[in-house]
């Protein structure tokens, strides 16, 4: 059952990566405003070719 010595560090690394993403996201201010993004994504930009 020694595959654990491979899978475990892998799971920890993967977990670590996502914790790093979480820290970067919070520091980068992604979660400052959680009300507007849901509405802002609904607006399509309109065409400027004309």
């Amino acid at each position: 059952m020694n595959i654990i010595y491979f899978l475990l560090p892998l799971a920890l690394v993967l977990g670590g990566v996502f914790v790093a993403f979480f820290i970067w996201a919070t520091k980068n201010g992604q979660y400052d405003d959680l009300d507007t993004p849901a509405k802002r994504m609904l607006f399509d930009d309109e065409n400027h070719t004309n």
Partner: protein
Amino acid sequence: MSTSSNTGHLEEFSYNDKITKWFVGATMLWGVVALLLGVIIAFQLAYWKFNLGLEWTTFGRLRPLHTNAAIFAFVGNAIFAGVYYSTQRLCKARIFNDMLSWVHFWGWQLIIVSAAVTLPLGITTGKEYAELEWPIDIAIALIWVVFAINFFGTLIKRREKHIYVALWFYIATIVTVAVLHIVNSISLPVDLMKSYPVYAGVQDALVQWWYGHNAVAFFLTTPFLGLMYYFIPKAANRPVYSYRLSIIHFWSLVFIYIWAGPHHLLYSAIPDWVQTLGMTFSVILWMPSWGGMINGLLTLRGVWDKVRTEPVLKFMATGVTFYGMATFEGPLLSIKSVNYLGHFTDWVVGHVHAGTIGWNYMMTAGMLYFLVPKLWKTHLFSKKLANAQFWTATIGLLLYMMSMWAAGITQGLMWRQIDEAGRLVYPNFIETVVKIVPMYWVRAFGGVLVLLGFILMVYNLVKTIQFANAQNANKEEDVYAAAPLSAAQDEPHADAHRKLEGLPMLFTVLTLLAILVGGIVEITPSLLSDKFVEKAPHIKPYTPLEIAGRDVYIKEGCYVCHSQHIRPTASEKLRYGDPSVAAESVYDRPFQWGSRRIGPDLARVGGKYNDMWHYRHMINPRDVTPKSIMPNYSWLTKNKTNFKVIQKKLKVMAALGVPYTEEQIANAYNDAYKQAEEITKGLTEHGVPMSMANKEIIPLIAYLQRLGADSAKAKAEQAEQE
């Protein structure tokens, strides 16, 4: 597109919708192929004659093609179409690099074609849902890296500061699938067409199902949750129900998902605590999944009347509901006592298709009905056709699920039924198979309806595209304008401008890859060294001929119908013998425990029937078991065994830690041929010509007779001593 200096006013840019159109086309094409394959193999189970007796059309080889086509070709292309369309719009930026996009597109289609060629030819690794051979695995890894660069490049170049939750789901998908694929495909190649995985036996089982479950998790679910969070609000023109809940949903899903693998191996030879761990986390997984479902469905509050009329919303609402159903059935199935009934039966197949057809197929259909009119700037050809598809596909799916539930539970109960005298009520395996054959017909018919629905959709969409092309032939893309991410970053420290801001993301991806490679290089040797592999003295490595036989077993895909693992329960002990022990499969590279028992378990079939029985059974199974649904394998008596390559195989096995001595490897060719002749001599009494000695059927018989033989011998010797 031109991007003026970032202090200037608005930057002009346009989206690369051409690539999305091609991916949409690929999704439609491979969707038909995958579903057609599904229908064929469904009929093959219902009536063995549909295997046509040909090597390339038998169930054993077509089933892996169906699973790979459905997951990587159909769902894969759907994900790429959705991701390319939504990422550019969420980031208000063009895709990172057009050339890379085309490399990604044509590379992926090439991989699919290579799979469509190699799998019917029997070139497979024998690991479920990862059957593609090592050259294709490398190609997949490379193309996935191309996709990652293209995606993260767009993210870094974005003009919208906030990264919407759908993009987070795409990030999780890309990062985790890369790790999963690479880890599960580590193998030592024998030659261009054959390789043996680094792991063996119980290790291979854990890694395989860690990959297996998370491929479902991070390839079939998280990207589609991302698509759900983008397309449902867009189609319903309503903000998502609770954006805060979607963020919590993402982060909780990402942290718990990775460990649910072991629920595929309950009651197997893996340690008990790993099983309990897998079970507990699968049940915990139920909450984030339903969090996602509730968030998706409640987004439609206030527009339910539109769901009635709009095909896009109708498909997506059904998709999310089936997602809820499948992610409730999954945790239920991973509870040990329920799993004891469900494992190896068709109930699992029902659960799988509730997820794949219910969630992926329906969401993809909804997405395509949304994308095609938008991409080609026209309206849908006919809503009536879309509704027709909806009803055929839904009824087809319901038929599929219901029949599989019925078949699964019937067979599961029949297997384990013991009368008061302690004897099996249905000792003969075929009795349980015959009982559920009608269910296979119902499932096949359900599959036809699902395929029919899909073809209706393809027709509908193609007509829409033709109508559009005729209508507005303007080719150049629309131009949009958006302000660049403001140069006055509000980070208090250094005046980070965009490139610097993107660094942490790039940095994490690179470190991940570095650690991964470092990990493999450093850990694999320790895996190979014997000190870790716990051994039982009486288990010996396979003889050269048996290795060749095992490869025939893998080539023909016997593992898709036969399992090689006996569970520690009363009924299985009576039917198959002692429960399998981890040590018994220590030299199995790849492990062949299997996940479905359409045929009986073969873990201890060695010595149970004589060689002639096997010979006649292979040529015409009905000859020995009257109502068997197993296809004929007549070409095994025609194809020649490649004796020369056996030595190379032994060398690779030795490199992977199997204790073959030098001279065993040296005269592998002679030993194999001698053993083949011995077996054929035994068969000549029944009229089998000596020329059969070099045919593939002989090594296969040798391998089958060896399954469980060591333990049987050891048990017999022990009985004598007492």
